């Protein structure tokens, strides 16, 4: 120190002017902060892009283009014997109804005086979805009195025309497409100008079953929602009691010995086993060994139960651990048995935490896809399963599997349906998570 002052040299650093080394260190500090902030911003942007693309891609599935035309239900074609016998009417196939719809559409076009250049008969008939004739047939079967009358029918239009009004198909792409043509789209525009064609809110997406490759406009998630619901019921009925019982034993009663250690290590490892491995287990144990039916919600529910058990056990144990020992001591002190202190005092106090963990486990199970693929839930299911318990053994689909299924189809309209199904799935997940947060807020207790 004294040498430096004796030297008479300029001070090498000042508090007011940062020296190069400090500047370098400060720059490093700023860079480091920027990296950190950048990482958070990148993950947020990713979340926004992810949700944005799915929602914009899928919102179209909730709107559907319909054609409103008067349909003359000709008694000579639909009921040849004229006795309105349901058995006879049932014999008339959808093909006949398709022809009736076609004639009605041609009649309507002629009535309104619509003329489109290069319009072929195929363009006119293809405007109507192939599903529409089946829907008309079902309507007539439900009410045979309609035969002979002229009814206003709300008819699904072809997926390409529907896509035209949602921006998926353009005149240019239609010219290259074998399934539609610019003339058909012009016809649709003309019908729309007459008020006969409109794009409306699509309830049937939520209620109707899946449809075949050729008719994306008719596909819906009705069976998938029901199947997912059934599986959640199975998970709720099995995973919650078993998970809570297991946690109570491990947390409150288990002696510290090798067996308990093995169980603990097991549970934490099971929580990290890839979900597809549970699918293999389900296939080998429940379907091949126990002989349960394929693509049934009961098998899916059992597999998802095994998968969610570790989540529920971990959450429940945390909730039990959070109850202070003084509660147990007080109960034991007034003469309760160990079992009574747990079931009468600790468990009710831990309930909110258990509920939250359960809901989060259920949400995880609801979005799981891979194990369900292996137990045959990809199968095409057209009929709604009946009410439980029998319905649990009948084929059904599940929301995430339905999404996967639709991504494997050739028609791009199914991508829109898949995104729509994801919106439904995310809406369910959002509701469950909100419920969990609300429960936590309402019942959270600090000791």
């Amino acid at each position, binding site marked *: 120190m004294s040498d430096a002052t004796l030297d008479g040299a300029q001070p090498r650093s000042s508090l007011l002017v940062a020296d190069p080394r400090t500047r370098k*260190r400060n720059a*490093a*500090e700023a*860079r*480091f*902060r920027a990296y*950190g902030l*950048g*990482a*958070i911003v990148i*993950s*947020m942007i*990713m*979340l926004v892009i*992810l949700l944005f*693309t799915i929602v914009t891609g899928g919102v179209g599935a909730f709107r559907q283009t319909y054609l409103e035309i008067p349909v003359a239900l000709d008694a000579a074609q639909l009921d040849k014997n004229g006795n309105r016998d349901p058995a006879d009417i049932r014999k008339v196939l959808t093909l006949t109804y398709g022809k009736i719809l076609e004639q009605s559409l041609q009649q309507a076009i002629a009535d309104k005086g619509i003329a489109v250049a290069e319009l072929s008969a195929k363009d006119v008939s293809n405007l109507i979805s192939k599903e529409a004739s089946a829907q008309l047939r079902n309507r007539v079967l439900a009410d045979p009195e309609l035969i002979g009358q002229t009814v206003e029918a709300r008819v699904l239009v072809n997926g390409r025309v529907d896509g035209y009004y949602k921006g998926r198909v353009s005149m240019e792409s239609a010219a290259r497409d074998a399934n539609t043509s610019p003339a058909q789209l012009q016809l649709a525009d003309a019908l729309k100008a007459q008020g006969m064609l409109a794009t409306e809110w699509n309830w049937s997406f939520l209620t109707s079953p899946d449809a075949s490759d050729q008719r994306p406009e008719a596909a819906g998630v009705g069976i998938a929602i029901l199947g997912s619901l059934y599986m959640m019921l199975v998970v709720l009925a099995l995973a919650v*009691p*078993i998970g809570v*019982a*297991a946690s109570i*034993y*491990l947390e409150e*009663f288990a002696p510290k010995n090798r067996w308990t250690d093995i*169980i603990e290590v*097991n549970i934490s490892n*099971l929580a*990290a*086993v*890839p979900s*597809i*491995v549970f*699918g*293999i*287990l389900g*296939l080998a*144990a429940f379907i*091949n*060994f*126990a*002989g349960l039916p394929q693509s049934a919600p009961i098998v899916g529910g059992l597999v998802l139960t*095994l998968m969610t058990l570790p989540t529920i056990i971990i959450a429940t144990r945390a909730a039990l651990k959070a109850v202070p020992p003084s509660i147990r001591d007080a109960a034991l002190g007034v003469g309760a*048995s160990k*079992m009574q202190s747990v079931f009468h005092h600790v468990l009710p106090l831990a309930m909110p935490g258990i509920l939250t963990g359960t809901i989060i486990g259920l*949400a995880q199970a609801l*979005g799981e*896809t*891979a194990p369900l*693929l*292996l137990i045959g839930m*990809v199968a095409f299911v057209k009929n709604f399963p009946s009410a439980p*318990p*029998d319905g649990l053994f009948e084929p059904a689909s599940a929301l*995430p599997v339905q*999404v*996967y299924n639709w991504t494997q189809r050739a028609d791009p309209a199914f991508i829109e349906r898949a*995104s729509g199904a*994801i919106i439904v*799935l995310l809406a369910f*997940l959002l509701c469950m*998570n909100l419920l969990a947060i609300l429960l936590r807020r309402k019942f959270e207790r600090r000791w």
Partner: protein
Amino acid sequence: MPVSWTLLLVLALAGAGYFVTRARVVALAGGDVRRLHSRPSYHGWNAALLTALPALFLIAIWRFVQPAANATPVAILALVLAAAGLGFALVRSAPGFRARNAVESMVKGLLILCSSIAILTTAGIVFSMLFESGHFFRQYPWHDFFFGTTWSPRFGGGSQLGILPLLWGTLYISLIALAVSVPIGLFAAIYMSEYASPRLRGVAKPMIEVLAGIPTIVYGLFALITVGPMLRDYFAQPLGLGNSGSSVMTAGLVMGIMLIPFVSSLSDDIINAVPQSLRDGALGLGSTQSETVRKVVLPAALPGIVGAVLLAASRAIGETMIVVLGAGAAARMDLNPFEAMTTITVKIVSQLTGDNDFAAPETLVAFALGLTLFVITLGLNIVALYVVRKYREQYE
């Protein structure tokens, strides 16, 4: 359905047993419940459990072992068992009988049974895969499976089922996913635990948790319709690296996004577990905040972070839906990240969906693949848990 009828009957019998026995002990005590060892409801529960449990176990075991067989004899046997249990409980019920102790030991037995289901599940996984893999290796030599470099299943016979191309695809995709998720997740965790104001933390943490709650099928669709075409049109085709929408890069990037919250929440816990005194010491010696993090906090947290990365790797290796929709189906050993490759999980799905012939090696190979996957992920998990646990002991 005779099973549900039997179930209902057994439960009804148990309910009746509860009330009858409770009434009987109260009557035996002459209406004075103070003369009973246990409260009357315990006597009732004792009867109900003794009635229901053996019969229910019988039904459960039979359902699982022989689901298709004739139901009637077993249903009758179950009902007889239930009636016998009820009779036994009724005979035993007396004012001095220690019903509470009996009930509690039965309940405890049930609790132990439930906690053993985790073991049963693991055993089920291991045995089912070992069993079927055994069938596979009897038909297909194991060295060709583990060291074969060609994957071309043919259902007519003469398939080559080498795991190496699948393993290569799996590891390549996981590597890209980790290269994306580890830096981003780690930096996000550092920023949130060391720098962020409570307000930013309150916004950013839930948003990152939302990423964690999104099902993987959603990420898969994102890879299929957004990321894949974008990478193909803006990177792969201009650079002349390929024209495939599904590629290693697509799956790796999207999987990386999926793993960000996983890495960040694990690292957050670990960084927060580093004692404040270490930070205070470093700051007191004049280091900047970033120097504290880089030279003190991270080295102290390193074992935990390694554990977190290993757990993330195990997640990446076992991930299915993203690679099914994003990586493609061509088994290939290539370095070009814009080429479609495939993984173990994709091939498990493709060999086991559709009509399965459980005698053909082309189907059975899925179990061998599953077993390999299980062993790899289990190994990673055990090492990771060991590292994390050992590290935690240091500071507690």
